[in-house]
């Protein structure tokens, strides 16, 4: 075990609760992030492609983009909180090593977020600058994804942390990690694919007002989804073999549950591709949503596999106090009810409110 790994603080309830909450909230964040990334990419493509319906589709997507950014950020807060509770002594260290980039996520997000609002509010007067603006937003998102991939892989490899002694200024990247590039491409491609599916479904909704833009959205979105999911099969294999041998073997019979999930994932990918080829967006969504959850579970196995020589969650000490957790669950129930009520009122009110 590396002497550089900090001593963790104690937990108020057993780690399983935090792992559960992490794996519950993280797919929601991913889903919103995928919609955000996919909408941006398709909005840009539709704009560059030209034509009146492409322009209108680009605007329709722009109108939902700020809300998607807001919700993606919001739903990212919860998993980032829970991962700090059980893996804080890893994620803090890696964050510090690449602190400049990690902190850079905030200005990049502010840039993209305000960019999205400018694109929405000033759409009619933007002209060519609109394309440039959207491209900037997309690049900012892709840069953020790259920083995240660096941080969430660097936290797994304490052997690489010695880079700190050559560079304490917070500009270390985890470029020596073999799985970095395939992992990044795997995540981004998957996100764009699911985002494409979102655009296709969104197209049905747009189609009620604007059939031309709606069908364009469905077509572009489904094409993106199917093509990228096919590509994903190749990237997934690359990612898998780039993993350290012991981690890869977890999915090859080394761990029964991990192997089962891996096979389930493969089946869902095939189902998603089939549905995509048959142009059945809703069916594809029924395959993609559980796939997203399965992928987060597989990701948790990869994490545990990497850290196995150094740490397992069983090592965390508990000094029990349950009442704050009960308080949280009560607040969560009330909050979910409030959000449901708000959305119902918004839908009832009609108009732009239906966008949510």
């Amino acid at each position, binding site marked *: 075990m590396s002497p*550089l790994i*900090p001593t963790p*603080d104690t*937990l*108020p309830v057993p780690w399983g609760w935090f792992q559960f909450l992490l794996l519950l909230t993280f797919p929601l964040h991913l889903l919103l992030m995928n919609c955000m990334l996919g909408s941006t990419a398709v909005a840009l493509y539709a704009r560059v492609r030209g034509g009146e319906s492409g322009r209108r589709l680009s605007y329709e997507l722009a109108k939902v983009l700020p809300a998607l950014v807001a919700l993606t950020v919001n739903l990212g*807060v919860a998993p980032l909180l829970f991962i700090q509770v059980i893996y804080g002594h890893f994620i803090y260290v890696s964050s510090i090593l690449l602190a400049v980039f990690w*902190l850079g996520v905030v200005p990049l997000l502010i840039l993209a977020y*305000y960019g999205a609002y400018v694109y929405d509010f000033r759409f009619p007067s933007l002209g060519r600058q609109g394309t440039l603006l959207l491209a900037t937003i997309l690049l900012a998102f892709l840069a953020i994804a790259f920083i995240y991939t660096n941080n969430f892989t660097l936290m797994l490899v304490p052997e690489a942390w010695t880079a700190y002694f050559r560079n304490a200024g917070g500009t270390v990247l985890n470029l020596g990690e073999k799985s970095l590039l395939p992992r990044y491409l795997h995540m981004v491609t998957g996100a764009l694919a699911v985002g494409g599916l979102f655009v296709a479904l969104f197209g049905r909704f747009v189609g009620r007002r604007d059939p031309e833009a709606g069908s364009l959205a469905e077509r572009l979105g489904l094409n993106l989804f199917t093509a990228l999911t096919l590509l994903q099969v190749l990237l997934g294999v690359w990612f898998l073999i780039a993993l350290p041998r012991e981690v890869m073997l977890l999915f090859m019979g080394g761990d029964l549950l991990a192997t089962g999930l891996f096979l389930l994932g493969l089946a869902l990918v095939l189902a998603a591709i089939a549905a995509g080829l048959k142009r059945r967006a809703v069916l594809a969504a029924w395959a993609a949503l559980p796939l997203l959850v399965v992928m987060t579970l597989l990701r948790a196995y990869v994490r545990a596999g990497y850290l196995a020589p150094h740490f397992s969650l069983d090592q965390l000490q508990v000094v029990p106090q349950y009442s704050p957790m009960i308080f*949280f669950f009560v607040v969560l129930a009330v909050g979910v009810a409030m959000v449901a009520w708000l959305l119902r009122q918004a839908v009832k009110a009609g108009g732009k409110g239906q966008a949510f």
Partner: protein
Amino acid sequence: MNYPVWYLPGIGGGTLIALIAVVHVFISHFAVGGGLYLVLAERKGLREKNPGILDFTRRHTKFFLLVTMVAGGLTGVGIWFIISLVQPAATSLLIHTFVFGWAAEWVFFTVEIVALLVYYYTFGRMEERTHQAVGWVYFIAAWLSLFLINGIINFMLTPGDWLADRNFWSGFFNPSFWPGLFFRSCIAFLLAGVYAFLTTSLLKDLELKKTMTRFTGRWVFISCAAGLPFGLWYRAVLPNEARLLVDGASPTIARALEVGQWALAALILLSALLVLLKPRYHSFSLSLGVLVCSFLLMGSFEWTREAARRPFVINGVLYSNSIAPGEVEGLSARGMLASARWAGQKDVHEESLLEAGEDLFRLQCYACHTVGGFNNDIAIRTASMSYPVMLQYLETIHERRYFMPPFAGNAAEKRALAAFLVAGLHGKPIEAPAVAGGPGQAIFEGNCAFCHDEELVRERIAGWPREKVRRALDALSSLDPAMPDFEGSPAEKDLLADYLASPPAAGAVPAHHDPGEDVFESHCAMCHSLEGSANPLLPKIRGWQRDRLRGALDRLEQLSPAMPPLSATTEEKEALADFLTHSLQGGQR
């Protein structure tokens, strides 16, 4: 200790936290108070059936959305990022202690976002009562976010019973929870008014502008009036040390509070001008002036609150440099470098003295001090200190300045840090530890030099035979009851007596021979220069006669609450008074 230190010596992590935090609190309090403003402004429009007011409220909502959701929400994430980068140990403790508090806060944040989006996008399309209800949901969720964060922030200042029982609720409902909550609520309502001055200034319809400026002015005045008693209550619940710091013992708090007072006065004056006296002066630029005043006021409050818990980041639990008070003793025994996981140097060697010193600086001082940066520059603070004085200062740093944590580490590490601060930063010489005076001098430095200037000791015993010196070393407390007996072995006492009874070795004593200057160096120079950039002393005492100076040295603490009493002997004070008098006369004797 436990975590690596992100090292940007010219900028400082504290500076980054302060920058992001001040911007965030300035927006996030607006996000709370402004929510109520929206609901009540809309209600006013509905009741008076005034489409102008409703249209203004809708536009103000857009402004509110863009400021609070984007800049407010993301700087909030930014704070979270930066505190875990700069204060990972404290952040980890707060996250692990209050995880379900943070999680509940996240739920309210979610409700806030959804409510605000619904409120904005359905303005004018939704049934009126329902739309008002959505606004109320937003405001209540935002205020509950404040409720939760307030508990955790005030925990850092006054952990209260948590220190004994480690119970979530004891820490959350800590002694400053309620005054903090009410005080912050007042700030939130104040900012609701201040920001609305901006949007009301843009109204074209003069009658509407007057109505809404009046409405907005009420928020500012009532919040200022209500905030005052809560502010005093807040001060009253502070622990003794923190209250002393707030009342003037901390020079930086004194400065912050001064800025805050002026900002408050200017804010009230400008607002009165806009609202009561000359509404036609109400322009965007004047409103911006009010906004700047409120920003300074907010900054002054947050600075004071943060600085009041020094030397701790979590009061009584963790020093600002992430060392726990209970760890200091062990670190002094085992050595800091050997204990810290992320120290590059694991030991002090003479050939890597400066490197080890810089590592120690990074681990123990950098949390608050930059090197050559804007914030709390260590180079300015140490400019006039010599190596022996620095060594001595590190020994008792936490007693001399309440807001400094103690040095944690062994004797070799103390030398390394002093060497870095004196030679590394300023290129000044460091006397080698095994010195010309031999083992006797080493014993003197290890046991006497913290309280005694060598030259003054030599003056005091001038003419004593060696035997008298030796005998005195057996019974120091009989010479002066304030002096502890020397615990050394007879052999050590012999060596020390030899050393003191013989003439000083060449080079062992600093080149200058004004004993008053030595006293200045060891007692004043950590905060004052004579006439340099660091709080110059001579301009403050220009024209003083020696008697007045000498008298002042006996009651420094009465001259300014930021000054500790001068803990020096009468002879040292006389020497210092001589030195300062001569310095005032241009250094001529």
